[in-house]
């Protein structure tokens, strides 16, 4: 419904009347709350099967920065419905992970148990791990995006940018209710220039960009049950005329987990129009065993995961609106790896 508002705004926009201004608000201080972000999947991957524990940052805090204040030294355990528990290994900065050789199993229920160093105990509601249907394919289109921004003198102007919109297509299983969440990771190729001197340093590199989805992407099959579904997952930048490998991961969610992620997605996309539902607390599935009134932020989920990728040859659509791309000059003995973090000069799989 947010477009309703933009239209509304327009009706009276004879002189760019409607406007959005930053304001200062007072919301009152609160005690830090435990924030839990946990997942167990059916794939043995320690970057997926992990739980992050941190403390929330008060909205009214002195600094306007959200520090990730990790919870260290906690005892964290995932239990299945046979009562077997697997203790998670504490890694860096409040991340607790399942050893590489372990993974969840479809059809099992899992719950999370946490004991903090100060003795406070928390638990999650059990979650059923459901398999994720395979994605048919991952596709993309090159697109122009137009948005209205305020320029330096405060006028509203249109700004056009370009990007590669990536879609996941899946055949939704008929009969059952299915809920999904997607994210994507990216690896991109880039070049540098070097002097004509031996030894020739590496001028072709690849950088692992990590997770490139900036917001929650979810869907329920209520309206397309049993049909093909094409989901927009992410928009990749059109900055360099090089190859980009994007991998889309699809997570199967329970109805409760979908509710949590759907509201999270709604929170991220709300523009505060009066046609948006008023913002509200998003309740997770964790609760305190020690103090029932204590609020815990976050969710512990169990998901089947499927993954598919596509290699985008961005050069086909160059030159881009942002201008011609000129590889930067790197003085030896440095090579192209200094230009982006997490980069390598060894061609990764998929390229």
């Amino acid at each position, binding site marked *: 419904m947010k477009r309703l508002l933009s239209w509304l705004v327009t009706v009276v926009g004879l002189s760019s009347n409607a406007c959005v201004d930053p304001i200062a608000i007072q919301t009152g201080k609160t005690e830090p709350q435990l*924030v839990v*972000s946990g997942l167990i999947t059916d794939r043995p991957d320690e970057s997926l099967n992990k739980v992050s524990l941190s403390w929330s940052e008060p909205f009214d805090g002195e600094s306007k920065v959200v520090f990730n204040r990790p919870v260290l030294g906690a005892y964290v355990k995932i239990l299945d419905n046979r009562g077997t528990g697997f203790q998670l290994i504490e890694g860096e900065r409040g991340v607790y992970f399942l050893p590489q050789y372990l993974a969840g199993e479809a059809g099992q229920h899992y719950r999370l148990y946490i004991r903090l160093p100060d003795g406070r105990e928390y638990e999650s509601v059990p979650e059923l791990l459901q398999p994720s249907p395979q994605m048919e394919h991952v596709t993309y289109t090159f697109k122009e995006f137009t948005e*209205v921004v305020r320029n330096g003198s405060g006028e509203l102007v*249109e700004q056009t940018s370009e990007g590669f919109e990536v879609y996941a297509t899946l055949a939704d299983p008929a009969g059952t209710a299915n809920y999904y969440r997607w994210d994507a990771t990216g690896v991109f190729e880039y070049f540098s220039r070097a002097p004509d001197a031996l030894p020739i340093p590496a001028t072709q590199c690849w950088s692992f960009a990590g997770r490139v989805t900036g917001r929650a992407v979810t869907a329920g099959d209520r309206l397309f049950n049993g049909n093909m579904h094409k989901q927009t997952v992410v928009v990749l930048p059109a900055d360099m005329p090089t190859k980009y490998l994007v991998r889309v991961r699809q997570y199967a969610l329970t109805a409760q987990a979908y509710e949590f992620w759907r509201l999270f997605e709604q929170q991220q996309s709300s523009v505060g129009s009066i046609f948006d539902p008023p913002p509200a607390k998003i309740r997770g599935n964790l609760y305190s065993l020690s103090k029932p009134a204590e609020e815990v932020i976050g969710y512990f989920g169990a998901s089947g995961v499927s993954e598919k990728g596509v290699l985008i040859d961005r050069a086909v659509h160059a030159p881009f609106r942002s201008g011609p791309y000129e590889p930067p000059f790197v003085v030896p003995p440095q090579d192209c790896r200094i230009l982006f973090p997490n980069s390598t000069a060894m061609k990764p799989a998929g390229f």
Partner: protein
Amino acid sequence: MLRCKVAPFIPAAHIRQLHLRFMKRRYHYFLLAVLMLLSGYTWAQDTGQPRLTASYQNQPLKAVLQDLQQKHRLRVFYQPDWVEGIQVTKTFEQEPLTSALQKLLEKARLSFVLYDDHTVVLVPLSAASIFRSDTVLSEAAAAGQVAERIVTLSGEVRSAKTGEPFIGATVLLVEIGKGTVADEQGRYTLSVPAGNYTLRVRAIGMVEDQRRVSLQQSRTMNVELFEVSNQLREVEISAKAPDHNVESLEMGVARLSIQEVRKMPNFLGEVDVLRSVITLPGVTTVGEGASGFNVRGGSIDQNLILQDQAPLFSASHLFGFFSVFNPDMVQDVTLYRGGIPARYGGRISSVLDVELKEGNKKAPILSGGIGLLASRLMVEAPLLKDKASFVLGARGAYPGLALRYVPDKSVRDSDGYFYDFNAKVDYTLSNKDQLMVSGYLSRDGFRFGADTTYTWGTATATARWNHTFNDKLLSSVTGVVGDYDYGVEAETEPYSYTLDSEIKYKQIRADLNYEPTVRHKVGLGASSSWYEFSPGTLTPGSELSSLLPVSMPRERSVEAALYLDHEYTLNPRISVSYGLRYSSYYNLGPGDVYVYDPESPRRESTIIDTLSYSNGGVIQQYGNFEPRASLKISLGENSSVKLGYNRMAQYIHLISNTTAASPVDIWKTSNPNLRPQIGDQVALGFFKNLQDNTIELSAEAYYKKLHDLVEYKDGARLLLNSTLDADLLPGEGKAYGLELMMRRKGKKLTGWASYTYSRSLRRVNGPTPEERINNGNFFPANFDKPHDLTLVLNQQLTRLISLSANFTYSTGRPITYPESVGYIDGLLIVNYSDRNQHRIPDYHRLDLAFVIDGTNKRNANWVSSWAFSVYNVYGRKNPYSVFFKPAYGGTIPQAYRLSVIGSAVPAITYNFKITR
């Protein structure tokens, strides 16, 4: 001494003082009548009026009057053609003004009224003669000797020019202070002791009619009123307001005539009924562009909106920027926010009753207006002279013109429109029978970019037959059919679809009014309404669409009601009115009803059974007694205290969890899982009029308790949800407030100032945490705005130019703010506080309007006016809402305020009226 020729108008205040004494000491009637005249005479002599010394030789009377105006700082009001061609030759030496004027006007057959020391209103002698003291005197004497025998005076009040009835015209028998108000057909009935009386009829914008009536037996007397603007425009300044607000039993009732609405500054030059209603105390809105309004802490679906008795489900065009009422077509607007009469029911907060005008029964008229966003045209004409007439009105909007200038491609590709048509025919079958047929058709649509199109429309038809059995018994039978449909259409594949919803309704009602004696008024009636709701049918837009067809089951219901009320005047000081309405509701099959496990919160997973009902089977029945009562006690001459109670029941509900309802929200009828909403209200009011009823003061306090309100679980999904009942929570509410108002009427500077303190709180306290909001504590409703101050002023600058201003201030509405932030899966999550624990910044705004009438000729065939207005003069960026943009780079999200109207908005409108 007793032949007081020069001051034929006796100040009303004197008359009223005398009335009281008449009541008490009828045998002194004669003596007091003499005193009255003496006092009138004394007043004319002793108020230090100017004296004249001048000499005029064969000078035009007009020039003489102008000379007087200049030399003596007099203001003389008259119609130019009364003095045309009249020459006077007179010499004055220290002559008192009254006698000088009398001599000057002899030849023109004019008399005059001294409004005050410097204001003189000329009156043709024929009209003035009925006030001649000798007649008044003799008749007053005669009346004093007549034994008490009750007779009935009835008749109709109509416009002399158009033949339209005057709803709400006040009819008063001056001598005994007995009066009434003309009903929807302009009819009035008064039962009084036989005698000779002065009948005084007044209506806003019309010249008062005052005539002698000999009432020795029951009789009818029809009164035709002349428009002020076509006669002496400024006579209006001396038209005294009726003391209706003090004398009647009504409280919490506000009437606006369309003349008043027209004078208020408006948004984009559009005269708008709903925007005017929002300036009344106790009425608020959540923000600019929000459709609907909130009355005394009620939500927007709790207002019964009637247009020619047809209920409307959407009162706005273009999201609240226009109301559905065509201002040219509107006769009269009444808002009942308390003291709701037993004849109304079905909604628990208020009744907005809008009556449309009848067509001119004398001559055809064409009128219209051209504005920046919309234009309108209306034609009315007699079908059978003095017997039947029709009126047709049409409006259309073209916001697309404005959209082209917006720096956003998707908005430029957007388009919108609305149009509406009104038609009304009325036919006087006989002296006793009247027939009226009225129809309304509207359509709204807009498209976002090239993709999504929203449409909605209303069609209603009303037929009404009024029958007069005799002077004491009147009846009226009304039938209404209506249809409200709304939908969304999206074209982008593979998600093209159309989503259609509809409400069909029919209503029939019969009302009887019986007034056996002066002191009793009885109303009796019955009504029945049928509803059929289609809460949503999703159809894939084409074969390429991957969406599935979904059809929500239809819901049917019948609501029947019976009412009786009685208004009883115990004595001139105390009157009571009490009534009872019984409403009976049936949710009818066919349909399936889910039975939820009563032990656990309602969810799809806690459905334990599904009950199926056949066509016409009763799924659920609810019945409610709705008592209404009010009491008035006069405290003295011009003040009274009133006390009222009413209970209302509501069986159909708007399901919308956004801050402002959108025109495509779902309506739902009560079922076993959704109980009817009940509202109880007690109110106490104090009313006082000052300065000849030109200043009205009122203070009203109310307390309301609301039961079974519709609230929502956090994050509820409303659209196409077959288990919607499980996402709804029953809530209770309380609302209370104090409304203070001062209103000035009948002077050059008119308007009102009102201040309201009010609260509206909700509580949802179910058995499990999931069924509670804010841990089961009371929280402010979305539209809870404790302080509300409104000023509405209109200053008549000259005969043709008026200036008006609105100022409004209110507390910001409640909102839910974030309390903390954290990271989930690397994404920033905002943790919000309990519901509605904070407020957006306060709202205030000033509007100005300037209206120039293009002609001052009497009976001109072409009358036009220009209206210039500026909305939000000082360009305040009133926040519509506050939201938080997701921050990048790990910072706390920034709060932004969104203002729909962030600067002053000027507008210009041209209006015209052509008569033959």
